[in-house]
């Protein structure tokens, strides 16, 4: 690793810690990291959508035409239509003509909703309905092998899934009061939902902590890089690595001390 790369990874560690500082409170470092990432990511998506979206989907299709014929002689001149519609969106820059932008918007929403109807009906309703129509495993009703209630493929579990799903559907009824037997079934439904939500919350905790471990590993790798970089071990490395490392550590430690002092001062004033 050369020195400039090391400086950039130091910057990466800096913004990592700046973002983590949000856990304590909103502060200038977090504000810096936040505003930086908003700008940089917006620019990044301009580039990505340009190269991966506009160029292959529009420009490449029109490029064999001539500009002075407004590309009408290209092999796929009909791609001028979406281009014009997209440019109509820009009428929003003007107050007077901004209503024109409703046309492409209407097209956009019309196409999207039209696509959604059969697709969602098929994937979410028809296929799920078909999946509920299972043949229940009566021979292994209480679990495979011996009596095993926690077997997820047993007939009992299948029955629970079926009843749970239907009662949860009943919970979602809008136009019927949840009273009497109907209310009872709806209650069963919301219990099923809540147990499921709790379980999936608990299940996610592990994956989220792994994310933090990954960040720790990055910081550790940076530290090792700096501390290993003695000039004798590797001629490419200079003392600069260590200087940058310790300066950075001193900076972070200094800021923490500053915050602590402030915190205790404000407490003594209050009491």
């Amino acid at each position, binding site marked *: 690793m050369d020195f400039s790369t090391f400086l*950039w990874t130091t910057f990466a560690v800096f*913004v*990592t810690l700046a973002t*983590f500082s*949000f856990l304590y409170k909103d502060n200038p470092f977090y*504000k810096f*990291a936040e*505003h930086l*990432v908003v*700008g*940089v*990511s*917006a*620019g*990044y998506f301009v*580039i990505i959508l*340009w190269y991966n*979206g*506009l*160029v292959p989907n529009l420009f490449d299709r029109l*490029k064999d035409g001539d500009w002075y014929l407004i590309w009408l002689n290209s092999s796929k001149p009909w*791609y001028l*239509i*979406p281009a014009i*519609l*997209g440019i109509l*969106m*820009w009428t929003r820059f003007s107050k007077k003509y901004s*209503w024109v932008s*409703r*046309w*492409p918007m*209407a*097209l956009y929403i*019309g*196409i999207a*909703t*039209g*696509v959604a*109807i059969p697709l*969602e009906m098929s994937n*979410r309703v028809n296929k*799920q309905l078909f999946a509920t129509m299972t043949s229940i495993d009566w021979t292994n009703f209480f679990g495979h092998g011996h009596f095993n209630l926690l077997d*997820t493929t047993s007939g009992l579990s299948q029955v629970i*899934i*079926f009843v*749970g799903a239907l009662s949860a*559907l009943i*919970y979602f009824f809008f136009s019927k009061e949840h009273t009497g037997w109907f209310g009872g079934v709806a209650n069963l439904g919301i219990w*099923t939902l*809540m*147990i*499921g*939500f*709790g379980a999936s919350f*608990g*299940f*996610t905790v592990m994956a989220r902590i792994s994310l*933090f471990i990954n*960040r720790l590993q990055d910081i550790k790798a940076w530290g090792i890089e700096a501390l290993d970089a003695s000039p004798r071990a590797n001629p490419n490395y200079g003392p600069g690595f260590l200087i940058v490392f310790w300066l950075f550590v001193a900076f972070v430690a200094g800021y923490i001390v500053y915050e602590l002092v402030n915190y205790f001062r404000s407490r003594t004033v209050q009491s």
Partner: protein
Amino acid sequence: MAMKRQIPFALVFIFGIFMLFQYFVPHESSEWVYEFLLDWIYIIGILALALGIWSLFRVSVDKIKTKKPNWVYSYVTLMGLFIMTVFGFTAKTGDSWGLYPVFVITFMLALFMLIQVLAKPASRNLYGLFGGAFLLAAVLIAILDRTWGFYFMEAKGLQNSMFRIFFDDVMMPILSTMFALLAFFIASAAYRAFRARNLLASLLLIAALIVMLRFNPYLPYAAYVAKVSNWLMNVPNLAGQRAIVIGIGLGIVATALKVILGIERGYMGKG
């Protein structure tokens, strides 16, 4: 009036109904129209990014102009946005970068002056003069220096080393740290909300606790806990999800139908 209100709704209806029934027609011609129309909304979406970037630019400049709280950070956003865009469109042609760093600096200075012109109308002439000078210098460098160049139709900018550094060492650390904050937020949310206030909250709490204890070796009957948590994930969770999926499917279809048939018009402006 019809141009502003009626035609957009007519467009939603026509294209929505067409796309709805297109799903059932596998023929080539219907497939062609489908792909073409999806390209439309894709291209409209990308071209609309100009509106988004303009909004980001205007809000940031406005903050600087009116000196709203934290206005200084808006410079960071704007610089990040433009520097990333410039990196993405430039790449070196030979082995060295030549005057590229000088170009980047003069270009950023020119931009800074431009922002000042917009934000501080009082001293517009001074900033405008400087900005023009820097811009001229940047343009001259861009024209005269042949070691690097602008690329718009080929994705060479994605290989630009500065573009990659900004992605790897600025954007990614902040984004993945933001994601990693979840490790902490999931803990505080669990602490705050998992109180056995009533039956529903208790079910949520107990299910989550069981799943979180599933690999705790200090616990008696730990193997059993693992089995129970598995059962919770595969039986009640599956039942609840199935009900939600079916409900959402019907909700989506109902909403989309209301939009296409013009019953729900709240998404489109009036006047």
